[in-house]
């Protein structure tokens, strides 16, 4: 009988819990109306370098044949690692996190609208540089669970009320808030908040790269040589989640980021062969590489639903809509958001939009909303928006025809040249997103390089020369604006390029003609977005020769120099671009992530 009574009591207690939870659970939205809830993040010590130095093979390209001439070794000292760590986490642990900052005599937890300080002498992790990954991981976990966990627990506890107020959903209009005038945080919500802590530790395996000393490709410069350092880093980011009940950190996930190949160069009057001479160039390139890796890591982080921003679409009017996200979630201008709806139990993709006017929503209970334009598909009130992991940089290929018909070369009347079948590799970067600038929204930077073939012979009657096309190479920089046509995913793209084109022709008797031309090309084209990550494009342009240098060397070695006059003509290209997520050297253009601190 007693047993039965005991069992009944337990049942009643369980049932009562279930009922109580059921009622408070109804106050929260389900997955279809998911909203981002802020997480607390702490970084563990400094970034760990597998090798606190970088060995760069030096390639000399100034001779007839490129050759490796030496290995230069650059040490990375602790004094350098510290700012690099700050730089890295600035792009990874952004404003969307509440940040736990460890100082020598205190630890501060900065939330969206407040902060809490705990006076404690938390020892630094003191993990030596240059250790293997496994040992580093053990050190991190040991430090997290012996030193950080108690502090994390304390600070999460202290800030429970503050962070509850910052939640996107609270128990509004209920008895407890309206009549009892209590904050009344439930144990269920407290548990969620106590489990919202994350720790980040970063391990960088050997950084690879090289140093090249080159002849400058551009004609007529005062510094005919340059040196370029290229580096690539692939940091491994260990993420741990704080378990509020067990009061320990548990492994959450591991991200491998990629900086892409990041290069920096300096021009030289003459080749210099001294590692010390390039120290500054190395430091600059290393910082850029770390920044590029951080941008990639931040993007990779958004692949995880815990760190990506979710919000329902609101105030849908035509092709624009709004969402309660903004600076507090580190949303950049032109950031793409995917649109979903839930249909018969399935999550269905509907299209995507881009942030055009990012709201400052850093104050408590701010009602400011970010404005989006629908780029492709359709959107309905309260469809789910999910931040699309994006870097703002697309890599692509283009193929087309470029005219280069000449009327004069090297001061001589000439004809021929014709149209060149051209192939380009392109990099397109959304300046609005990268610079986080509303004024630059949908202004895109285009960098391209390519080559061609199939031009016509050039005839120079006065020199009795007929020379055949050999090489066509071009490299250029352009800017264009994407003007989207409704929500079709289609944009027209007026813009202009500035490029350098290099052409080489060879005659049958060993004579040679080279043409280097600075070209300005106004163009108009189209982009069709299949998604934020993949698009097809096309353009038509009119290359205008700005200035050029030509040299004709006849079979006897006599050189004729002068400029080239071209007939003009229309070029056209079609191509496709894809988002790989790596940004490489373009990281130099990236503005810092949005911050609630008003400057």
């Amino acid at each position, binding site marked *: 009988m007693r047993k039965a009574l005991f069992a009944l009591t337990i049942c009643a207690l369980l049932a*009562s819990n279930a*009922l*109580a*939870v059921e*009622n*408070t659970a*109804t*106050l*929260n*939205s*389900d997955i*279809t*109306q998911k909203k981002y809830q802020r997480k607390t993040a702490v970084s563990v010590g400094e970034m760990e370098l597998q090798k606190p130095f970088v060995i760069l093979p030096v390639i000399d390209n100034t001779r007839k044949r490129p050759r490796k001439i030496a290995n230069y070794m650059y040490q990375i000292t602790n004094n350098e690692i510290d700012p690099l760590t700050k730089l890295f986490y600035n792009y990874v642990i952004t404003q969307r996190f509440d940040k736990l900052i460890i100082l020598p005599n205190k630890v501060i937890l900065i939330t969206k609208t407040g902060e809490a300080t705990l006076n404690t002498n938390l020892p630094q992790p003191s993990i030596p540089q240059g250790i293997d990954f496994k040992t580093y991981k053990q050190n991190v976990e040991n430090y997290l669970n012996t030193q950080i966990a108690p502090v994390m*627990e*304390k600070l*999460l*506890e*202290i800030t*429970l009320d503050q962070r509850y107020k910052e939640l996107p959903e609270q128990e*509004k*209009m*209920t*008895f*407890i808030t*309206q*009549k*009892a005038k*209590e*904050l*009344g*945080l*439930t*144990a*269920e919500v*407290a*548990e969620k908040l*106590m489990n919202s802590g994350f720790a980040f530790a970063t391990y960088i395996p050997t950084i690879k790269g090289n140093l090249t000393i080159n002849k400058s490709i551009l004609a007529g410069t005062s510094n005919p040589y340059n040196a370029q350092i290229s580096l690539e880093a692939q940091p491994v980011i260990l993420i741990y989640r704080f378990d*509020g009940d067990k009061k320990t950190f548990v492994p959450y996930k591991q991200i491998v980021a990629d900086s892409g190949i990041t290069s920096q160069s300096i021009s030289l009057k003459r080749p210099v062969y001294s590692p010390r001479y390039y120290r500054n160039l190395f430091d600059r390139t290393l910082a850029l590489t770390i920044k590029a890796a951080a941008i990639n890591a931040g993007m990779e982080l958004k692949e995880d639903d815990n760190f990506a921003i979710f919000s*329902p679409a609101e105030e849908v009017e035509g092709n624009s809509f709004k969402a309660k996200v903004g600076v507090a979630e580190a949303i950049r201008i032109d950031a793409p958001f995917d649109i979903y*709806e*839930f*249909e*018969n*139990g399935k999550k269905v993709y509907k299209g995507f939009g881009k942030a055009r006017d990012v709201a400052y929503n850093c104050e408590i209970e701010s009602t400011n909303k970010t404005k989006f334009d629908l780029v492709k598909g359709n959107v*309905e*009130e*309260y*469809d789910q928006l999910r931040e699309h992991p994006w870097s703002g940089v697309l890599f692509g290929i283009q193929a087309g025809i470029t005219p280069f018909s000449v009327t004069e070369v090297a001061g001589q009347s000439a004809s021929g040249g014709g149209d060149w079948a051209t192939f380009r590799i392109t990099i397109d970067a959304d300046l609005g997103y990268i610079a986080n600038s509303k004024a630059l929204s949908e202004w895109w930077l285009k960098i391209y390089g390519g080559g061609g073939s199939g031009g016509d012979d050039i005839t120079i009657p006065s020199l009795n020369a007929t020379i055949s096309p050999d090489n066509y190479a071009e490299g250029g920089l352009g800017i264009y604006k994407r003007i989207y046509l409704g929500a079709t995913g289609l944009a027209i793209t007026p813009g202009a390029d500035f490029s350098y084109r290099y052409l080489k022709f060879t005659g049958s008797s060993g004579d040679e003609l080279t043409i280097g031309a600075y070209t300005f090309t106004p163009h108009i084209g189209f982009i069709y977005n299949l998604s934020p990550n993949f698009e097809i494009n096309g353009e038509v342009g009119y290359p205008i020769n700005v200035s050029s240098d030509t040299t004709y060397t006849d079979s006897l070695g006599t050189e004729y120099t002068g400029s080239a006059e071209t007939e003009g003509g229309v070029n056209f290209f079609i191509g496709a671009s894809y988002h790989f997520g790596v940004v490489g050297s373009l990281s130099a253009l990236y503005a810092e992530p949005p911050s609630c601190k008003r400057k």
Partner: protein
Amino acid sequence: MKKLLFLSAAFIVITSCASTGKQLCQMPNTVEPLSKEAQFVESSSTAEYIILATGKGCTVNQARNDARKAAIWFVLFGGDRPLLQTARERRKAKAILDEILGNPQNYIRWESAPKSKRKEGPYIVMSFLFKVDVGALKQKLLDEGVLESTEDISEEVGLPFIAVLPASNDEFSKFAVTVIEEYLQDRDYEVYVPEGNEKIDKIIKTVAALEGKTDPYYMEAMQAGSDIFVKVKTSVWKVNKYGRTFLKATAEAKAYETATGKLLGASTGFSPERNVTSPEAVVQEATNDLADKITLQIRKAWLRETRRGKPFKVVVFSSEDQFRNVDRSIYRIFRKLSRRPIKRLASGKSATTYVVYIKGIPNAYELFMKLEDMYPGPGKLEKVLDTGSLLIIKAGSGDTDIEIE
């Protein structure tokens, strides 16, 4: 060219077929909600409920409006505390349902942002939290004569006098008593607060002893002269976690018919575990959870029970030699007055207790007058005590002393 034309035509045919294959969304031409899915969340005050309701529609606005209707519909008909409790009330409500559901926003004081949105078949299905003004809704039902007003009930069967008693002496149970009293008063019931009276106390104890009942709440309720008494019990738990104290309360209420001791309703309310400065907040939250339900249960049971007569407990004392005849006379009168069977709870050599249901007599005093008029003898009737549903009389000739010990 021909090929191209053929392909284009095929494409148009295929796409148009595909589009006609999709279910067309059409809202039915009825004022009732398409969705009748709703859930009670909280009784935030005596006149307001928070309801989680789901609506269906071809557009977001239609789904939102349907959810509003579903919330109102739920308050009227759904769950375990509908405003319309009897078949008669539901029948009467049909006449004004179009008016109420046609303008659901008239009864909604607040609505949340959507809590859910999905597509099911051709419909958009959305959920919202609504604060429903149950007070206004009830007033509308009263004005339109769908619900019987308390005055009507008073005129017809008499409004019950209710005593709310804490089941234990702890401060939270006493606090819960006030919450329930507040709900009852808001619904125009007369709430009696028992006060000590030594003489009445003595009589009640004797009567209770006669029946073999020793429940102090029963005696207290009898003493208060209540028709119904509600026993309230609360418990508060403390849990320490995350560096703070979370309180959780449960409240339990049982309503009894005082005359018969019959259970009329029972309900339990819970609060979640909350970090609050005062336990009263969670006690009230838990009590709010049950108070509305128990008051509706009381109303429903009282209406049901009293339609065939109000219950009275009548204790008759007489001298041993006259008792047999007195008992017979009284019993015959009750047979005439009551449509329902007469219950004799306890009977001795000189005393007996009846439970009778008599229509048209609102209180024990009027019952006494009626008995006095109809009593054929032996001797006459003399009233000892009347409190609500309890009537104690002496009957017979000569001086019949009742010893109350």
